[in-house]
């Protein structure tokens, strides 16, 4: 009998017991899913995006279904980082899985302050969500310029000695430049993609379905875009890449890993099948067994690109 494949995933400063991570904003604080799945099965849980102070979020409707995807505009509703530290970390620590604190700020200093608050807490990593508007610079997201990504990353790096992931937004022209800026400023890994800005219209009322008009697209519809961006990024940076966007099955996950991802995150799929993460983990293991690979590491970035120029000779 062949031994079970090694599913551990190196994502920089820390090693996960398997490469499947529940994506931020889709898994609450883990608590919500604990009735439906065994949280010990997960490589890590990225918790709902945290802000310095509690946030109410956007008015409903906050979600709209679109072909093979969903649009959301939750508006970062969360109880604030202090409540997370007091109530959610102790709960999550009772499981054998890594905790990733996803943080969002209005200014680079706010990101820094939150990082400082987490420095001595029992979290395994910080994931910096740069998709939020920079209120000091006209409200454009931090994540759309290499310069502001660097500012935020540096600020967090100064205050936090642990594993630092920068989560990139796909709403940019050159994702490689953003990833390189994060790496240079001290990120241990980058994760992508966050949601793609989109819109859905109700033709009867002649209004957008979302109260907030625009929202972020996720789900299978974004997978091809996400995969291309993960590949581009993994080819451009040396730090590990965590891939996500529309992963619904083990084979979707393997596509991302082949394209260069060291670990993957699962978001929307958990809404439909609460145990999606566990199924995806099994799917990855089965693929490795079927192809005789011993570890996830062996297939990370193993994708061989076609050479269209040579094919024509």
């Amino acid at each position, binding site marked *: 009998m062949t031994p079970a494949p090694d599913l551990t995933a190196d994502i920089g400063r820390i090693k996960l017991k398997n490469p499947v991570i529940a994506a931020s904003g889709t898994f609450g604080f883990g608590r919500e899913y604990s009735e439906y799945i065994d949280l010990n099965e997960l490589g890590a849980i990225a918790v709902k995006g945290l802000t310095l102070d509690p946030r*109410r979020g956007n008015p409903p409707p906050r979600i709209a279904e679109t072909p093979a995807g*969903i649009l959301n505009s939750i508006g970062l509703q969360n109880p604030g980082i202090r409540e997370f530290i007091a109530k959610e970390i102790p709960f999550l620590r009772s499981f054998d899985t890594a905790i990733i604190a996803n943080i969002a700020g209005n200014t680079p200093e706010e990101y820094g302050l939150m990082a400082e608050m987490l420095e001595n807490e029992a979290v395994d990593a910080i994931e910096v969500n740069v998709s939020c508007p920079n209120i000091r610079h006209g409200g454009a997201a931090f994540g759309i310029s290499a310069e502001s990504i660097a500012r935020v990353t540096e600020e967090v790096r100064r205050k936090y000695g642990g594993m630092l992931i920068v989560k990139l937004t796909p709403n940019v022209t050159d994702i490689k430049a953003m990833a390189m800026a994060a790496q240079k400023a001290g990120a241990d890994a980058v994760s992508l993609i966050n949601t793609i800005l989109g819109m859905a219209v109700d033709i009867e009322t002649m209004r957008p379905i979302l109260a907030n008009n625009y929202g972020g697209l996720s*789900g299978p519809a974004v997978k091809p875009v996400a995969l291309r961006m993960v590949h581009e990024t993994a080819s451009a940076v040396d730090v590990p890449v965590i891939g996500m966007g529309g992963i619904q099955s083990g084979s979707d996950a393997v596509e991302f890993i082949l394209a260069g991802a060291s670990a993957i995150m699962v978001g929307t799929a958990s*809404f439909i099948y609460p145990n999606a993460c566990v199924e995806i983990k099994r799917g990855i293991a089965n693929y490795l067994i079927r192809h005789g690979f011993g570890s996830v590491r062996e297939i990370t970035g193993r994708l061989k690109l076609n050479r269209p120029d040579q094919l024509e000779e």
Partner: protein
Amino acid sequence: MEKIMSVRQLCDEITSITFSSRYMAAEAKPGQFIAVKCGNNSMDAMLRRPVSICRADRWSNEITVVFQVKGKGTKLLAETAETGSYIDYIGPLVNSFKSPPAGAKIAVVGGGLGIFPLLFLLEEIRSTRKDIKADAYLGFRKNDSVILREEFTKAADNIYISTDDGSCGRKGFVTDICLPVIDAGSYDIIYTCGPQAMMKCVSKAAEKSGSECYVSLEQRMGCGIGACLACACRIAVRPAEGSSQAADGGGWEYKHVCRDGPVFRSRDVVWDKTEES
């Protein structure tokens, strides 16, 4: 996943699915819903759809849900559900109608799709509580869309029907029939489910007459289990437990239909200013 025992067309576009579940029959409470997957692995209606539990037979373990074909998901569900196939759902979710105190006189006020959880409530009360007097007020569009009439008649002491066009019962809105009775302070508790405008109207009247009132809210959902925070509704923040102040004007917060509801005390609901009815 449970096996479907029967599928019935109640009227144009309204389908009833009965499935067998020992767990649900033991656990389900009136007011709760389930989140149903429509079609297998469909990319077009990916998210689960919330549908109320309409009947639960504790002895035969049969659970019934009734739904109207509205868009892609419910259309797919109506097309694919058949006797012997399986229904994929999460539930029962999550809170339920508060059961009435001994000897209470209650009313249920339902409009359109809102009548389904109210039937479960009435049938449950009928089979377990001889001390309760219950009236049902039901609003439909037209005679052809009047459904479950027999069931309601059996489960309630009195049933009053209205249709928009007067083709069955009283012409007009269901509130035209029930408001005068509510205003007269006839009921200890009122349970309502249906269009926002109707529930708001009933709530205001109930609060004025000093009746307790429970509403079942609707909102678009992502996960159905409290994780994505999509299904937000505005709920008053009360300064102190047990305070009896009205919910208007004061502070509110977003609660979630799938986690804190779908049933709320009417005086805690902060209704939308703009009404689409």
